[in-house]
């Protein structure tokens, strides 16, 4: 009888684990891949060191005038010297606390919507949100509340981009909600008005809307009334945003299961009770990532205001570049700086929206 002799266990094959295998798998899995890896590495080696050298190591960091830029690298002195204008525009220096106050109020309101308990949230955060744009205008303008009057001609810089985008989305929120409801309504006239509004503001280039705001809107007001340029821009931005958000909300409404509407009806809730208490919270939850994406788009589009002569951050940069004391060709540094600011803001918002998406994803995927 033959005896059963187990063979000694073999070690794991060496080339399927460990760092060597990882490198092989990720960089040299085939001839084409190896070639691609080598080409990309060669490109990175030739491009990155000079780039970092220009950006950081041979860059000029200290000084106040153009003459301080003696090294070959980037002249960050330019950005530092103009940083106040880039952020606040030409708002009077001793009144800057007003802009800061508005920005802090904005952050506080956003934080309150996250931190407060559920009951307080509805009673405090929502009214605070809706009041914020008007309170901010009162503070920044100042003439109604006994502060020194600052004309909107002096408002500008990156803070204007932020505040204008925030003020537009806040007012666009209820408006777009109504338009989306109108588009889903059974009433034919209300439905067609909503469809026309939404499609108009989505179908026309935003620049055309801004031009409408600056050359056509004044014609619509009664003779002699002079509506402030920034106010007209705010109206246009709000309507533009409302068009896009209405479509986002429509998608949200469609995604709420029909049973939810029927359950609300069978409880005997009125139309507004049903919409506001049952449907809206679910819609907002579903649409949150898209709302943020739309907001990012609006925020980036605030730079277009340069074309109709609003001193937002890009416009301020252009002015700084043509200043006679700084004619050393600093456009790369200037645009790079603005690009980095926008990138940080938009990237973090897209991260937030991705994390919300993950948090709300209750579906069972494997």
């Amino acid at each position, binding site marked *: 009888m033959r005896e059963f002799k187990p063979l000694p266990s073999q070690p794991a094959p060496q080339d399927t684990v460990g760092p060597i295998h990882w490198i092989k798998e990720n960089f040299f899995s085939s001839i084409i*891949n190896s070639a691609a890896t080598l080409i990309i590495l060669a490109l990175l080696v030739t491009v990155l060191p000079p780039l970092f050298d220009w950006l950081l190591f041979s860059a000029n960091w200290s000084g106040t005038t153009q003459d301080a830029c003696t090294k070959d690298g980037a002249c960050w002195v330019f950005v530092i010297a103009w940083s106040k204008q880039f952020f606040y525009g030409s708002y009077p220096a001793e009144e800057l606390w007003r802009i800061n106050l508005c920005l802090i109020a904005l952050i506080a309101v956003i934080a309150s919507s996250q931190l407060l308990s559920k009951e307080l949230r509805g009673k405090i955060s929502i009214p605070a949100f809706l009041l914020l744009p008007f309170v901010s205008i009162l503070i920044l303008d100042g003439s109604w509340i006994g502060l020194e009057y600052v004309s909107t001609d002096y408002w500008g810089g990156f803070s204007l981009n932020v505040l204008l985008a925030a003020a537009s989305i806040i007012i666009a929120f209820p408006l777009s909600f109504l338009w989306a409801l109108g588009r889903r309504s059974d009433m034919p006239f209300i439905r067609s008005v909503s469809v026309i509004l939404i499609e108009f503001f989505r179908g026309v280039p935003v620049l*055309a809307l801004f031009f409408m705001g600056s050359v056509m809107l004044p014609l619509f007001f009664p003779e002699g009334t002079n509506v402030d340029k920034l106010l007209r821009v705010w109206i246009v931005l709000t309507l533009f945003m409302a068009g896009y958000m209405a479509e986002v909300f429509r998608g949200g409404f469609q995604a709420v299961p029909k049973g939810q509407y029927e359950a609300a009806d069978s409880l005997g809730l009125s139309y507004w009770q049903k919409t506001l208490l049952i449907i809206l919270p679910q819609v907002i939850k579903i649409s949150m990532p898209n709302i943020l994406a739309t907001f990012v788009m609006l925020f980036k589009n605030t730079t277009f205001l340069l074309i109709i002569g609003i001193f937002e951050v890009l416009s301020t940069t252009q002015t700084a570049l043509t200043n006679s004391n700084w004619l050393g060709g600093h456009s790369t540094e200037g645009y790079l700086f603005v690009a980095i600011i926008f990138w940080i803001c938009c990237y973090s918002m897209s991260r937030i929206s991705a994390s919300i998406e993950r948090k709300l994803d209750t579906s069972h995927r494997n």
Partner: protein
Amino acid sequence: MTEQTPVKSSPSFFNNPRNRSIIYQILLFVGLAYFFYGIVSNTMANLEARGIQSGYGFLSTTAGFDILMSLIDYDATHTYGKTFVVGLLNTLLVSAIGIVLSTLVGFIMGVAHFSHNLLIRKLATAYVETFRNIPLLLQVFFWYFAVLAALPSARQSLSIGEAIFLNVRGLYFPGLIGEPGSGLVYGAIAAAIAAIFFLKRWAKKRQDDTGQQFPVFLTSLGLLFGLPLLALIVAGFPFVWDFPALKGFNFRGGITVIPELMALTIALTVYTGAFIAEAVRAGIQAVPHGQTEAARSLGLKESKIMKLIIVPQAMRVIVPLLNSEYQSLVKNSTLATAIGYPDLFTVFVGTTLNQTGQAIEIVFMTMAVYFVINMTISFLMNRFNESVSLTER
């Protein structure tokens, strides 16, 4: 015991949904009518006060300004109507180039996200995350004022083989000029396209009937190059190259791409390409992995799996997204006005509006144009979408 009166079953007049909806709609109508009446009467009064005549008569008056670049014959003695056409053609040109290039970049970067090579994957992600999050206008300025403005002057231009030149004034490359007999070649190209169309239908019918496959792609390629080549030989090469050459201070001859067009095209391509790459990635990710595995277990080659299994299913997700990306590209091409590329917006809403003051007519015409272009894109893409969408029985 008192007799209980039965509860009235029909609701009161105002609680009846039908009556209520009629009242709401009448209220909205009256409100809107009042609003528009106010706007129109204000506008009339304002226009009269400023002494602006309304109407489209201005279109036939002489424009009196030059346009940097024009695809058709134009000079300052032509009419405002002609400026409209010049601007429209320039808008269509930049939109078409932008759509083709951004689709190319977007698909390459979107597919690169699934590469086996880690470096390629990371580069694709870096590209998307960088350019999606920077305002487009800033990118236009960056290319125009920081990159293209730093190119060398005409005398020191960068060149490839003394045929293609790049300098601060633009990009110059040789153009083909057709001589008598070139019509035959154009005819051959048209014939080749028609032949491919019929070949495709025939091959599909044959595969449906007999199961045999026909190498459609290779045959099409052969037709597309073979027929025109044959025509070229028959007609005796009726084309001459027009090379750009430095004469005096600038290049003459060939085809010139002005820096404004280059900057706008690069910015639109890079920006929209990032969004298209995201759409392509989402489309491919939406195809369940089981499909790939099933195809592999059937023994299909990797290239066939991509072409026959993954791409057709991914297109269902990609096409609607592409539709909106193309539309926003066309709308974003209006940023031309910031660097002075003479598109419809720059020429018509910028200069013509400034000179004539006909704000309402001009803004209306421009909006109508963008509406029509976007509706056309939407129509074509929806047709395309129908052909790729899921057919359920």
